[in-house]
């Protein structure tokens, strides 16, 4: 095939990018080389629109062992233990083929984690669908949930937390973000930097097929009416092979044979070989005839661009080939020496004894395009006045019913039950709490993890939204008694070529950076997913934050279920009554304007740290952060989980009841304490200038809001569980 400008454009490259390739090579590339450039230079692999802004994120901290740039981030949790974690999107494939798209998303992120030597110990996911009424939503939901379960369950890694939302902006582009945490000893972390000359380059895992060719390019473009044709770009997962690959890799990693290891994810053999060479500042030579292939007559182009799953590339120490092969034979996996490291800093490919590609590595990586895209600032929306007259016709219990049974708040039990949450025997907090918690096997420590996003706030004002979502992640970890350590982010946005969407990205990232810097909650890994857009309609900006925290003694973990009648409930943090962009304003009053709640980073940090202090002193019996739906929604969930009721008091300052109960002011928690600790607790709060409200007391089985508004816990459970089961037809 003759390569020209049109062929390059068909590969998703821009005309000037093609010209740059020809200039760098000082010749026209052949088709294999063009394929390699298109795979390395697409948005998904090159971060060409985002790099400029991402470099401002805080990525360092005293617990950070490895920040962004490796397969996953690594943090220190003491005693030689480290946690490896990352979140990644698999949005485009999941919309085209929900089961396989979601499954391979989960498989891919687990591979990123065990590539670094860590055994995966927990999975999380954040999934976003279109309006429940949209014709595709139900099948996409079913497919995605089954795909996530199908892969994670077979791998034997528990799914411990997650988030599901519905919004019409995802009608044409669903989001599937998968996160994995792994545990590794600090001296056994593996990296992707190749080193040494003439070292064997090894291919292990599944055979290469024609699936997923151009997957990464597909994920770097907007959808149009021809998306069904893109099905072949979706990879097919084989969790069984990945389980074998995991065990085989960890077995090999126990020794000292590996110099560098990299999984073949997006852009398969191309990006894995080039990344290892680039990081090691050397070259790699590969004989493509040695690559184990599943199908006949595969061309160099297909072999290099296949995104077949469950494959790894390893640079081995000389002389260790036999030892390594033995391990992979034991696990029935392919093992092939396909090339070697070279000093000429090129990627050189041979096929049928002919050289089929010869590209200097730096042209693919350092010289890849970087754009400073134009972007538009989003002004803070004007404050709106919500007329209190409207509240007169509302009955609190009816509103509460509507909120608890709304798609974004209702119980997601139907989803959780399809995920194995308890395999590995260390899950001490299952989905449905503020964060999932797993013990570090064989120790007293536990790690907590949460995934969060707030697309509504980000859409209303990206800068505030970006800050808010980091704060929410921080709060969720605090609420289970964990000290927040670091985050990973999955930045889901529309087209970067559109100034509004690019502006949303820039300002969300700015907000996210400000909050993570202030809270000392650095970003250690992440992924950007642009082009979540069908024709010219993009999704609401949806940065997803995966937060990880440490509980030094797992016996001190806190849960949100109410524990004991007559205990006192406090709201920690000030309730100002901010209703704009709240669930109450949007869903009940149908008011979609106004700014999202303000973020006060000082209060956020102060409140969180003092909550942890109160937990250290064992004053807190249960805790829950106040987020979507306000105090009453948060409290209802605590009641439902604990099968206890609560009797509310009036706040001791002037505030409308609806504003008090439903507003979404930030930085707040509800805590349950014993009566005899009331003075101790409030003393500490006062000393640290933290506002608190005496919310009421725990009772046996009824939520009593005032004389006229009462609801039993059984009814609350019904409100909370009915919608999803009905929707799914159970």
């Amino acid at each position, binding site marked *: 095939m003759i390569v020209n400008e049109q062929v390059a454009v068909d590969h998703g490259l821009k005309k000037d990018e093609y010209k740059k390739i020809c200039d760098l090579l000082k010749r026209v590339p052949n088709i294999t080389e063009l394929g390699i450039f298109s795979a390395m230079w697409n948005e998904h692999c090159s971060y060409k629109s985002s790099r400029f802004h991402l470099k401002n994120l805080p990525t360092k901290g005293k617990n950070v062992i490895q920040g962004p740039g490796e397969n996953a981030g690594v943090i220190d949790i003491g005693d030689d233990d480290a946690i490896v974690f990352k979140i990644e999107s698999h949005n485009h494939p999941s919309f085209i083929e929900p089961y396989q798209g979601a499954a391979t998303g989960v498989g891919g992120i687990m591979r990123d984690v065990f590539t670094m030597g860590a055994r995966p110990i927990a999975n999380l996911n954040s999934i976003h669908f279109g309006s429940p009424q949209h014709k595709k939503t139900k099948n996409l939901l079913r497919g995605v949930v089954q795909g996530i379960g199908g892969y994670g369950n077979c791998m034997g890694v528990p799914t411990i937390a997650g988030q599901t939302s519905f919004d019409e902006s995802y009608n044409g582009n669903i989001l599937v973000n998968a996160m994995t945490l792994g545990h590794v000893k600090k001296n056994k972390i593996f990296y992707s930097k190749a080193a040494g000359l003439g070292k064997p380059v090894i291919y292990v895992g599944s055979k290469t097929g024609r699936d997923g060719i151009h997957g990464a390019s597909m994920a770097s473009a907007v959808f149009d009416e021809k998306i069904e044709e893109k099905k072949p770009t979706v990879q097919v997962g084989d969790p069984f092979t990945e389980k074998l690959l995991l065990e085989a890799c960890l077995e090999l990693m126990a020794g000292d044979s590996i110099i560098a290891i990299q999984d073949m994810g997006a852009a398969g053999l191309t990006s894995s070989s080039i990344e290892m060479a680039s990081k090691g500042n050397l070259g790699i030579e590969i004989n493509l005839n040695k690559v184990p292939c599943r199908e006949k007559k595969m061309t160099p182009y297909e072999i290099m661009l296949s995104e077949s799953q469950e494959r790894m590339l390893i640079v081995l120490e000389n002389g260790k080939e036999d030892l390594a092969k033995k391990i992979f034979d034991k696990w029935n996996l392919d093992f092939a020496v396909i090339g070697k490291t070279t000093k000429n800093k090129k990627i050189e490919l041979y096929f049928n004894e002919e050289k089929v590609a010869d590209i200097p590595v730096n042209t693919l990586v350092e010289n890849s395009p970087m754009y400073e895209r134009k972007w538009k600032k989003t002004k803070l929306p004007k404050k709106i006045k919500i007329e209190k007259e409207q509240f007169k016709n509302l009955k609190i219990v009816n509103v509460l019913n509507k909120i608890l049974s709304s798609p974004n708040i209702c119980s997601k039990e139907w989803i*959780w039950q*399809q995920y194995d949450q308890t395999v590995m*025997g260390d899950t001490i907090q299952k989905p449905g709490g503020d964060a999932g918690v797993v013990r570090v096997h064989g120790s007293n420590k536990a790690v907590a993890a949460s995934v969060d996003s707030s697309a509504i706030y980000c859409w209303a004002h990206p800068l505030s939204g970006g800050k808010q979502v980091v704060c929410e992640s921080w709060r969720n970890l605090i609420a289970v008694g964990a000290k927040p350590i670091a985050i990973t982010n999955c930045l889901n946005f529309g087209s970067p070529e559109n100034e509004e969407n690019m502006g949303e990205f820039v300002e969300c990232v700015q907000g996210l950076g400000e909050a993570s810097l202030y809270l000392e909650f650095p970003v250690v890994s992440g992924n950007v997913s642009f082009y979540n857009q069908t024709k010219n309609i993009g999704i609401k900006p949806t940065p997803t934050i995966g937060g990880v925290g440490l509980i030094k003694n797992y016996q001190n973990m806190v849960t949100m279920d109410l524990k004991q009648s007559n205990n006192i409930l406090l709201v920690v943090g000030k309730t100002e009554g901010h209703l704009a962009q709240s669930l109450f304003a949007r869903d009940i009053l149908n008011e979609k304007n106004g700014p999202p709640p303000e973020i006060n980073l000082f209060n956020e940090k102060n409140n969180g740290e003092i909550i942890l202090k109160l937990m250290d002193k064992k004053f807190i019996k249960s805790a829950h952060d106040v987020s979507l739906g306000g105090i009453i929604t948060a409290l209802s969930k605590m009641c439902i989980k604990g099968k206890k009721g609560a009797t509310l008091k009036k706040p001791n300052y002037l505030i409308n009841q609806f504003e008090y109960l439903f507003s979404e002011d930030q930085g707040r928690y509800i805590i349950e304490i014993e009566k005899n600790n009331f003075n101790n607790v409030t003393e500490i709060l006062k000393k640290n200038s933290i506002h608190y409200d005496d919310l009421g007391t725990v009772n046996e089985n009824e939520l009593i809001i005032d004389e006229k508004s009462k609801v039993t816990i059984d009814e609350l459970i019904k409100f909370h569980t009915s919608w999803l089961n009905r929707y799914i037809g159970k």
Partner: protein
Amino acid sequence: MNSSVITFPGSNCDRDMDVALKKFGFKNKMVWHNDVELPKSDLVVLPGGFSYGDYLRCGSMASKSKIMQSVINFANDGGKVMGICNGFQILVESGLLPGVLLRNKYLEFICKNIFVKVNNTNNSFFKALKKNTLKLHIAHNEGNYFCSKEQFKEINDNNQIALYYSDKNGNVDENCNPNGSIANIAGIFNKEKNVLGMMPHPERMIDPVLSGEDGSIFFENLINNLKK
């Protein structure tokens, strides 16, 4: 007491079972599916997981593993064999237990806490158990136990039904059947009661910080019975 846990390719509850057995006093050995001989054992456990990816019928490939001939011989000589979840499926496929395990009624994987009522305590697995009803955990896609009418009559007559899904008070009815199993069956024995297969995972309930401790009751009792 010596125990052996078999690891098949795709087993993923083998470590959990190892942890549980050791916690309650067993000297446990992990045995690779390709081995031919079993170490000296008082109990052999086939753990949960997705042996061979469950790509054919669940458990069917594993039931043909090299080690399985030794497991079958061991069972036929009266050795105690226990299969949990995928292990139960393998026991059924190997012919050590009657019946089959079909896909769950709603065709969905189910992971949750359930209660089981112990039906037969006249055997080494449940003799002298402190409780009649245990809170355990299930996590499976194919736990829907099925057998022919004749087989059902036979296992019933022989008192081979080990566990029923029940409510917390031990009442057995359709409302507490999570997967559509015939007669709420959660576990069965062979005729001789030295082979037990069950879907619930006692090894996930061995610590108060986990979902519960009824698994501890089961394992403590089991090792005491085997010592006798």
